[in-house]
C-alpha cells in the first residue's frame, strides 16, 4: 500500500504527506499495547470533579501536583508514599526534597511517567484539565481533589482524600483536631462583633478575594468580614470603592511580617490610601500565606488572624500556641513578590506560583 502511494504521487509535497501518513500509522500501530501489565487491586471512586476514576485500593506511589495536596499528605503522615511533587510544593521543608515533576500548569509528563506512580493527585482549581486528560491517555490513574469554597469544605475534602489514600483513621483524627480548634476559636469570638476587613492579594492593581472563596470564609472564621461583595474569585477593586467602604483592618498574607510592615508603610504614603482610616490608624494584620492554600494549615492562619483582629479576647493566654513556621523565617524577601504569588492575573509560566493555592 505504501508502495502504491509512492508510485502514484510524484510530487514531493505528496511524498512529504505520505511520510507523515506512514509516520502516523507507525504511532497508531503501537497504540493498543497494554503497558500496565500487572494491575494491583483497584476500586472505582468518584472524585471531586465528578469523574468516576479507577484507583488502587491502597496507592503506594503517589504524585501530588498541588502544594495544598502535598501539605495535606504530610499532615496525614503519608509522606513516605509521596514519590514526587511540584516545584511549588515548599511546605513542609521536607517536601522540597521530593523528586520534582515540574510546575503546576506545566508538569513534565515524562518525569511523571518515569516515577511510575499508581496515583496522581490534582486539584480542579489550579491544575489544567489538559493535564488530567493527558494522564488518562497514558493510562495513569488520577484523582482530582479539593476545589473548596469554605473552610468546612477544606476539612471534608481532607477527609475524602484520606479515604481515597486508604488512611481514613488519620483523616478522621486530623479533621476532628481541626474542627476542635475552630470550635474553640468560635466560642472565644462569640461575644465580639466581626471586624470589617479588606484582604489584599495584590496592591497594583488592587486585587482582593471574592466572597465565595475559602479565603473569605477563613476571614469570617477569624472574626472578620470581608468588605468585598464581588462573586468573582479575584475581583479587582477600585480604590474609590475601598475608601467608600472604609475597612477596619487591612489584611496581608505574607511569609514575612517585617517586609509586610514595610510594604504597608509604602502603601500609606500613596495619596489615595491615606484616606483610609485603617491606614491612618495603622490597623493592619499580617498572617501566614498558609491562608492561600486549601490545606489543613489554614486553621493556624485563621487562629493567627483572630489574635490580631481581636487582641482583647486573647489577653490572658500564656504563650502563642501554634505559630506557623513560616512566620518565624528570616525577613529576606520583600512582600511584593510574596504577594504576587497569589495574583490571579499573573498566572503565567514565569510566575506560576501565582496559581498556588
Amino acid at each position, binding site marked *: 500500500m505504501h508502495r502504491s502511494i509512492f508510485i502514484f504521487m*510524484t*510530487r*514531493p*509535497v*505528496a*511524498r*512529504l*504527506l505520505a*511520510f*507523515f*501518513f506512514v*509516520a*502516523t500509522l*507507525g*504511532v*497508531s*500501530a*503501537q*497504540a493498543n*499495547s*497494554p*503497558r500496565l501489565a500487572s494491575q494491583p487491586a483497584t476500586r472505582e471512586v468518584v472524585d471531586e470533579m*465528578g*469523574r468516576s476514576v479507577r484507583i488502587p485500593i491502597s496507592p503506594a506511589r503517589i504524585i501530588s501536583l498541588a502544594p495544598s495536596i502535598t501539605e495535606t499528605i504530610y499532615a496525614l503522615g503519608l509522606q513516605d508514599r509521596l514519590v514526587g511533587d511540584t*516545584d511549588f510544593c515548599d511546605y513542609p521543608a521536607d517536601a522540597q526534597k521530593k523528586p*520534582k*515533576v*515540574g*510546575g503546576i*500548569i*506545566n508538569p*513534565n*509528563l*515524562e*518525569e511523571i*511517567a*518515569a516515577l511510575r506512580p499508581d496515583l496522581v493527585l490534582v486539584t*480542579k*482549581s*489550579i491544575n*489544567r*484539565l*489538559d*493535564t*488530567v*486528560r*493527558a494522564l*488518562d*491517555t*497514558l493510562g495513569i490513574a488520577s484523582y482530582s481533589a479539593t476545589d473548596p469554597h469554605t473552610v468546612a469544605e477544606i476539612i471534608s475534602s481532607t477527609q475524602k482524600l484520606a479515604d481515597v489514600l486508604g488512611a481514613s483513621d488519620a483523616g478522621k483524627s486530623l479533621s476532628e483536631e481541626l474542627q476542635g480548634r475552630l470550635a474553640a476559636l468560635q466560642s472565644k469570638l462569640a461575644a465580639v462583633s466581626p471586624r470589617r476587613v479588606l484582604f489584599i492579594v495584590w496592591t497594583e492593581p488592587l486585587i482582593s478575594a471574592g466572597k465565595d472563596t475559602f479565603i473569605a470564609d477563613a476571614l469570617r472564621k477569624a472574626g472578620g468580614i470581608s468588605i468585598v461583595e464581588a462573586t*468573582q*474569585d*479575584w475581583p*479587582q477593586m477600585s480604590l474609590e470603592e475601598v475608601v467608600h467602604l472604609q475597612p477596619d483592618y487591612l489584611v496581608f498574607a505574607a511569609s514575612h511580617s517585617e517586609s509586610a510592615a514595610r510594604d504597608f508603610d509604602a502603601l500609606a504614603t500613596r495619596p489615595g490610601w491615606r484616606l483610609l482610616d485603617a491606614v491612618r490608624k495603622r490597623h493592619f494584620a499580617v498572617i501566614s500565606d498558609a491562608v492561600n492554600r486549601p490545606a489543613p494549615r489554614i486553621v493556624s492562619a485563621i487562629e493567627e488572624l483572630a489574635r490580631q483582629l481581636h487582641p482583647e479576647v486573647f489577653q490572658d493566654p500564656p504563650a502563642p500556641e501554634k505559630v506557623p513556621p513560616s512566620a518565624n523565617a528570616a525577613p529576606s524577601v520583600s512582600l511584593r513578590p510574596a504577594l504576587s504569588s497569589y495574583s*490571579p*492575573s499573573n*498566572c*503565567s*509560566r514565569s510566575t506560576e506560583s501565582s*496559581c498556588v493555592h
Partner: protein
Amino acid sequence: MRPLTLGRLLFRCGILAVILFVVVVIALKMGAVQVSLYGLGRDLIRVLLGQSSAISTDYGMIVLDIRLPRILLGIFVGASLSVAGTSFQALLRNPLADPYVLGVSSGAAVGAIIGLIVENHLALSPEVAGLITPFGAFLGASLTIAAVYFLGRRDGHIDSSTLLLGGIITASFLNAIIMFLMNTLAGSNLRGAVFWLMGDLSTPQPRSLLYLLSFGFLVAAGAIYTTASDLNLLLAGEKEAMHLGVDVPRVRLVVYLAASILTGLAVSVSGTIGYVGLLVPHVMRLIFGADHRMLLPASALGGAIAVVIADTLARTIVAPSDLPVGAMTAMAGAPLFIYLLRRRLT
C-alpha cells in the same frame, strides 16, 4: 540559475527530509528522562516491525506515548504554518504577511478561550470536553477568515492591501476581546487560556484528531501546490499574471481558503506559535529561490524542522519544567528576522 527539474526538486526535498529525520531522532532522544541511543534504535525498529508489545523498557511509554506524538504534532504544526505563511506572502505579495497578521490566530484564540469557559460549565466526559477547545479554536479561525475575506473585498474583488489591513484591524479588535475575556474569567479558566496563548505542544492529542489533522494537511497543502506555478506568475503582479493566463480570482480563493484552513488546524491544537509562518518561508526563499514548486515543499519540511527543534529546546532547557514553544520560536525568530533584514539591506 539552472531550471528546476523534478530530479533536483526531489534531491533537495530528500536532503531536507533526511535533516528532518535526524532532528526527529535527536528529539526522541532528548528530554527530561534519559534515553540511550541504542535503546531508542531498538525500540524504533520494534515499532516498525509491529512488535511494540515487546517494548518492556521503562521509557517505552515515555518515548512512544509522550515524545513521539508531541514530535509528530510539532511536524504537523510547523509544516502547516510555514506552508500557510508561504502562501499568504505570495498571494498578498507582501513579505510581512503571515497567518497571524491576518487575524486568524486571534480569532482562534477567542474561540479557544470561549471553549475553555464552556468546558468548565458543562459536565462533559473528558473525551468530549477535550475536543471543545480545538473545535472552538477552529471555529474562531474560520469565522475570522470569513470576516477578513469580506472586509478585503472591494467591488467584488479581493484587494491585497485592503485584505492585509482588514486582517490587522480584525486581529487588534479580537485581541481586545481576548483581554476582556481574560480579565473577566475566574481562576482556572484563565490558567488554561494563558497557557494556550503562549503556544504549547505538550498536551497529547487524541489519536483521531491526529488523523484528522494529517488528512486536513494533505488536502489543503495539496490544493495549494496545484497553484504553485500560478503563484510564481502572481509574484510579477496580478495584471501580468492575468495576461499570462492565470485565473487570478480562482487562485486567490483556493490559496486563501486552503492556507487559512491550515492555520486554523495548526492553531487549534497548538495555540499561537509565532514567527514560524513568517520566518521559515524567508529562510527557504534565501536558500532555494522563489520558485513555489520548490518553495512550498521546502517550507513544509523547513517549518517541521524548525518547530521540532524549538519544541525540543523548550522541553529540555529548563527541564523538568516546560517552556512554551511559542516563547522559543519568538526568542530565536525575532533576532533571526532582524539579521535577515539587515543582510538584505547591505
